[in-house]
């Protein structure tokens, strides 16, 4: 099973995802977080940015990975449609982020994510697949 769902929180929101591999899990978490920021379908995958992220362990890596995507949007004005995880281990990942420069004529943003939190962050992987959870501060 592969997918994600949004989690309720009194003030903020969370994302939970599951996948066959950790790489796909990290992709699903990114797509889930994107759903919080915007459900805008018009984002094209015409540009790619290559990014590298590190962290002390998988949960920290997940928080840093999603945080990097928030940064790309907020500072570089880059809204993503999809991601390709190129390489991933316990403490680092390389990915191609596919999307385009935010265009207010065609795109809209529903919510601003202040940060991806470490609150109850979880990454579980086993022989039958893996799952993860994070909460974001809105």
């Amino acid at each position, binding site marked *: 099973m592969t997918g994600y769902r949004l989690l*309720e929180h009194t003030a903020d*929101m969370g994302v939970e995802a599951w996948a066959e591999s950790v790489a796909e899990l990290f992709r699903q978490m990114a797509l889930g977080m994107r759903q919080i920021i915007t459900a805008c379908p018009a984002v094209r995958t015409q540009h790619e940015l290559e990014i590298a992220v590190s962290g002390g362990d998988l949960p920290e890596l997940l928080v840093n990975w999603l945080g990097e995507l928030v940064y790309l949007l907020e*500072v570089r*004005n880059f809204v993503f449609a999809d991601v390709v995880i190129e390489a991933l281990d316990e403490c680092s990942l390389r990915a191609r982020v596919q999307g385009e420069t935010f265009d207010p004529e065609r795109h809209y943003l529903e919510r*601003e994510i*202040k*940060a991806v939190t*470490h*609150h109850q962050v979880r990454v579980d992987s086993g022989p039958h697949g893996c799952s993860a959870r994070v909460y974001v501060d809105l």
Partner: protein
Amino acid sequence: MSVKLEQIDECRWRIPREGAMRTEGLVFASRAMIQALQKEQALDQVRNVATLPGIVGPSIAMPDIHWGYGFPIGGVAAFDLEDGVVSPGGVGYDINCGVRLLRSSLEVQEVRPRIEKLANALYRNVPSGVGSHRKDLKLSVVEERKVLIGGAGWAVRNGFGRGEDLDHIEEQGAIRGADPQVVSERALERGRNQLGTLGSGNHFLEIDLVDEIHDQQAADVLGLFPGQVTVSIHTGSRGFGYQVCDDHLKMMLQAARSYGIELPDRQLCCAPIGSREGRQYLAAMACAANFAFANRQLITAWVRESFQEVLGKTASELRMSLIYDVCHNIAKIEEHQIAGRKRQLCVHRKGATRAFPPGHAETPALYRSVGQPVLIPGDMGRYSYVLVGTQGAFDETFGSSCHGAGRVLSRHAAKKRVRGQNVEAQLESQGIIIRAASRATVAEEIPEAYKDVTEVVGVVERAGIGKIVARLKPLAVIKG
């Protein structure tokens, strides 16, 4: 997980010390509030905070408490300077998120006929919502570093506001000890385009009317009268503060491991106050706090301009002076009396407001006879309140009070509640004009998403940790 609770009196509940807790929890709430709280995780979070090293007194929760991340929102915790810790999660991402209140000489009947024009002018002049900023405010890196040290004073020196504004801001609008050297490039980058912006979510800019006076003497001192028009500004340190928190959480995760601090939740990561990591965080936090003071000061200048522009009155006719500006996400080194002994403590207020009593040296001279003003926004359909600090708060809660109404509905639940309804039109029929950058924000911020602030401040007053001065009612609300 259910948390054991013992009722102390009508407004106080104890979470007894057990397991890894180093102290007990103290929750200010009515019975009805407690019932609602038991359905979420906020009380577990009060208990988790009680496990942190060097905590002094109880882990405290204000009546607007709700589930946060790591610390609860509405939490107060004080730590010993020598064996205690400082935690970025105990301040939150939006460092020095806070509220300021401006009074005016205007009465509601003068403003009502122009209220839409005023709301439009505020919406135009004060950037709100994701990604918006003033085209005429460009910050260089050098100038941004000056903001981090100067805070609201930087803004005043650059023509935004008046010198006397600074006397009416917590810490005179600049926390000492700010060191831009410890701030990351990324934080500077995120902050540069966001100075002078409201942001989104629960941040707002509001025109209110003074609806009821509860304490005439204090109202006179604060310059409040019935029917008067006031303006509230609720925002913080924007992307700059979020990044400072994020950067230091990463460092503190490492630090907590190396100092052998057991964490019930990673978001509580922390380091000894005197450690390199602790000192660096406090220096960076002060930068973010000062960014937030400058942010609210810039917005104040644009609010004054907007009123002058729409009403065709001069600054001296409008008399829009600053009543006060409070931080509600902050850690402060303060002196408190513990068991008859004066002690320096690091007081974390996350979704809690300082509420110092009459006579305290930190209360501005003008307000020293009545206590420090405490500004409590409610929701966009009901009320907000002005309180003053009390000796009770100083004795029991490290001089702290609540910070708002506190959410009760998740964003999803709030949206579901109003599906198919026109929230703006409904509020307009009640005489409240809404201008918002995002429809999702309006749906998620409906009045029903919050506790009734009247009940929250009622608990505060009955518990003696704040005194109600006046009730405000919204006329126009600008949201992100």
